[in-house]
């Protein structure tokens, strides 16, 4: 499955870059970086389908709770 994901992303990237009329360096770089990020994300999810979703607000709430516990212990 992982090999299939990597191969499919590589193929799509190669075909699309081949179809571009021009290849400006910065655009190509960002495109490749984004494609790499997407591939890593897809592979990570294939390895662990229960990958937790990070939540900024839940993190803040947990930090607040810890702070309250810490202040209570003083």
């Amino acid at each position: 499955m992982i090999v299939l994901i990597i191969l499919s992303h590589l193929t799509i990237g190669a075909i699309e870059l081949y179809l571009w009329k021009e290849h400006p360096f910065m655009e190509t770089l960002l495109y490749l970086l984004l494609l790499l990020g997407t591939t890593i994300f897809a592979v990570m999810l294939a390895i662990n389908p229960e990958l937790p979703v990070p939540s900024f607000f839940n993190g803040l709430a947990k930090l607040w709770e810890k702070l309250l516990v810490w202040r209570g212990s003083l």
Partner: protein
Amino acid sequence: MRKELVQENHGIALTTLFILGNASVAALGGYAERDLWLSFLLAIAVASIVVTIYSRLRSLLPGENLFEGLECLFGKWPSRFLSLAYAGYAWRLAGYVASDLSDFIRTISLRNTPKIVIVLGFVTLAIWGVKAGIEVLARWSSVFIKAVLAALSIAFVLLLTRVDLLEFLPVLYNGFKPVVLGALQLLDFPFLEAIVLFWAFDQFTTKQSPYKIFLPGLLIAGFILLLLSAASIAVLGSELYRYNYFPIFVAVSRIDLANFVTRLEAVAGIAFSIGGFLKIAVCLLVASKGLAYGFGFSKYRFLVTPLALSIIPASQWLIKTIMEFAGSANKVVGPSDFLFQVLLPLILWGVAEIKMFSRRKSNFYGTTDDQ
């Protein structure tokens, strides 16, 4: 780069389909139960005010397009950071909608089909649509909205044969609190998700166009959803409506005219699929535009494919089961949604009003000094 100009009637169709999107079969405002219609009216009234603020903000921005305007008003780095934040919000929303669509299709018919296969089909179409641009998407909407409205009207008229109006009584039996909670649910999803559209349009024909596009679009979609949801409650009852994953779909499936006109649920399914596809496409467009502008590029089309590919795993990551879908559709106010739908636009609007006022003032005194 050619600026894409959307005509007002096409823009209204796009806004209507976007709001109908994945909401046309979901259990909306379930908290309000039999007072759902009151929640809808309250939510539509509040959403109209917020959308008027979005439109006012959009019409205040100087410059030829949205990003030029933001840069003029807030400076280079704040506007880039803002566009990256909204790109993230639009990407997440696209993941949610893709997940909703695949869950819906897997629940009603293709039970053993992997989620990825269904999402892949919609995402491939979305890549095509987004690369064609907002102008083409808006024109496509103006064609397909006729089919969606016709399908939903037929469903609504035939639902009237099964309704029991006593399901709405007694009015306000549990007080006003469930109505407010239901209205908050409706504001969170689907009404104020229209903030994404604010980033989708490049430029408008006149300064008044944002008002003429967003407000009628919101009102049309709002009243369609009100009629369909209220009819579904009258057919199913408030308990079944609240605890069903797709109550409108279930209500439409009960239509039976003399054992001849039956199995009309496909009509609701088609409307849901068309709206869902458009919503994914618009979210993908906003994510691509926001990311391109955030990194300092004037073109966005080269980012569409990798971003679209990332929506496929995102749809499995953000919502893993259909129960999570129901939870996300029925939450009262999500903190991140509140931030992007209400707080940030209000701050931007306040800053824009103050800056434009001070600019007008300095221009006025500048001209009088010259005289």
